[in-house]
């Protein structure tokens, strides 16, 4: 039972990171029907920028508490990612807004490769280690181990998602975003500045990605110019699992994918008597994804609910 609890905790922590990144995919898709493949790389840039800042702060004020250093890193990484996403949208996607849908998709892949290689040039090919500045106190919870950092990650994810939901549901900008998602043309006729709303969507997604990037690098203790790729792919799958374009779906999809992966890797070997090993972890996760899509082609919570209403 304690092993099961541990796997569940492992999965929830991993899943809450997936969920945060998935939000960026789903928000952009919801409005533009564009899969922004560069989003994983924005996450990576967030981690890299934050690590650089943390390195500088550590050199200048080594006695500062670790949390303050991470906060300083976030304070720079968030605006940096927001500016980056703003630029990407303006340069790479906006000119193609009326082009066939395949064009911006290819551009997105191109941007993703450019960002990876830029990061490789700036930060090098080395894995960059996250300094051990965060508290690593362990707690026993129903026989399982959970660290302060893991609790932080889950709490910050939940907090970020709550803020996002409030923003989309309760603010003027949120209403403009929902309107644009339903129909760009009609929203424009109603006086919504669609360009600004789209920019805002990218920028908000990037801010969340920066938070996720810092959390991933703190959790695994490393950052690398390549880290955004797999994370992006998993997060994108999570968004599809929950129903792409649907914010609640991205959260649910992320958490579910994390838990499925953890349970899959943890039990698949024993359940199949060693026939399928833990390297089928991803296969298992994607098998569940395919199953869900076969029976619910628009994801668990449905695709772009508002659009269909």
């Amino acid at each position, binding site marked *: 039972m304690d*092993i099961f609890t541990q796997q569940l905790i492992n999965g929830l922590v991993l899943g809450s990171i997936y969920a945060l990144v998935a939000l960026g995919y789903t928000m952009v898709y919801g409005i533009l029907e564009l899969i922004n493949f560069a989003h994983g790389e924005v996450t990576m840039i967030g981690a890299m920028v934050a690590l650089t800042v943390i390195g500088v702060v550590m050199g200048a004020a080594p006695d500062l508490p670790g949390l303050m250093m991470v906060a300083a890193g976030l304070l720079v990484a968030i605006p940096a990612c927001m500016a980056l996403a703003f630029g990407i949208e303006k340069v790479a996607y906006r000119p193609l807004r009326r082009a066939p849908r395949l064009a911006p998709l290819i551009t997105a892949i191109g941007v993703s490769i450019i960002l990876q290689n830029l990061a490789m040039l700036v930060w090098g090919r080395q894995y960059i280690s996250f300094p051990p500045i965060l508290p690593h106190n362990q707690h026993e919870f129903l026989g399982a181990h959970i660290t302060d950092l893991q609790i932080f990650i889950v709490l910050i994810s939940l907090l970020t998602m709550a803020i996002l939901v409030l923003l989309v549901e309760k603010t003027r900008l949120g209403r403009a975003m929902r309107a644009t998602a339903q129909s760009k043309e009609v929203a424009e006729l109603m006086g919504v500045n669609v360009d600004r709303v789209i920019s805002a969507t990218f920028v908000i997604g990037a801010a969340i990605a920066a938070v996720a990037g810092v959390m991933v690098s703190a959790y695994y203790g490393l950052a*690398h110019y390549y880290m955004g790729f797999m994370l992006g792919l998993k997060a994108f799958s999570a968004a599809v699992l929950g129903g792409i374009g649907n914010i609640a779906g991205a959260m649910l999809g992320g958490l579910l994918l994390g838990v499925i992966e953890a349970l899959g890797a943890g039990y698949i070997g024993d359940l199949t008597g060693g026939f399928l090993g*833990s390297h089928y972890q991803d296969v298992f996760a994607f098998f569940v994804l395919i199953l869900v899509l076969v029976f619910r082609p628009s994801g668990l919570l449905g695709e772009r609910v508002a659009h269909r209403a």
Partner: protein
Amino acid sequence: MFGLLGGCGERGGADESAVIRIGSVAPLTGPQAHLGKDNENGARLAIDEINAEGLVLGGKPVRLELIGEDDQAEPKTATIVAQKLVDMGVQAVIGHLNSGTTIPASKIYHDAGIPQISPSATAVAYTAQGYKTAWRVMTNDEQQGKVLGQYAVNGLGARKIAVIDDRTAYGQGLADQFEAAAKATGAEIIAREFTNDRATDFTAILTSIKGKGPDLVFFGGMDPQGGPMAKQMKRLGLNAVLLGGDGLQNANFIKLAGADAEGVVASSPGLPIDDMPGGAEFRKKFESRYGVIQVYAPYAYDAVQVLVAAMRRADSSDPAIVLEALARTDHEGVSGPIRFDAKGDTTGGAVTLYQVKDGAWRVLETVR
């Protein structure tokens, strides 16, 4: 593909001497890019030194040109890059870095009749294919896995062992050899788990292993996975020794695992760099140009030297003649004496075991 074009031919007077192109293939992008660039730099150092000395073959001055290519540690990219090098007319190839890329590429070099010397591929299968073109300057997994398996039981006193590998030719091969040797020495293998060479999260398999109560976890894989794995073992309260091969035994592993690297044991083929006959001098030369040595740079350097020594003996760069000369190699390299057996493996290689103490790899012992 972002392969860096090597050489550049910027020096004057190059037109007077014939150019011999030598390929160097390693992952220059992706998670193992730091190791790949290290190999390429090791080869480049040797090439630059030989060019500075001046090389004369068949009475004519020749200049070596290194063509650095990126195989992304991907078997399928490796074959594309290998074909590209063959088509460019390289006379020999130093590489690849990983066993998983070296083996598929070796068929292409074999078919083209070009000598291939891998500085770091250790999978047994590489030289077991019967290719006369395949050589390596590093101890293979059979030798290393055997030492590791015996050391786990006799040296570290492990009885219940969990084995994880990254499903690459290297990781899987090493883990298989380790498992066989550990079993033969009297240990029980209580779990065999798998991951991949892109993963960073191992909590699920470590949790499952923890439930079986091992006293040692063996990982066949590289530092980008090993570092986080060491961390996650501590975080999950899995109090077993982490043991690995040469993929973990490098500076980067300690950086990635931080304080959780303490106590980790790993082996490396050959001698510690400072115990190598030419280690101190090599370190000075290399680090003044390229920065810290990752792992295999001395072997890449030696591979080029062995190749050029064979060219000198043959007094030719014709691959067919060089291949015959390579078999007669008896070279005092930076990493130690290099001789080949009939398969193209190095003979009499040593394996050294290291443990992390106070944030650095300390030599435990060298097994010959």
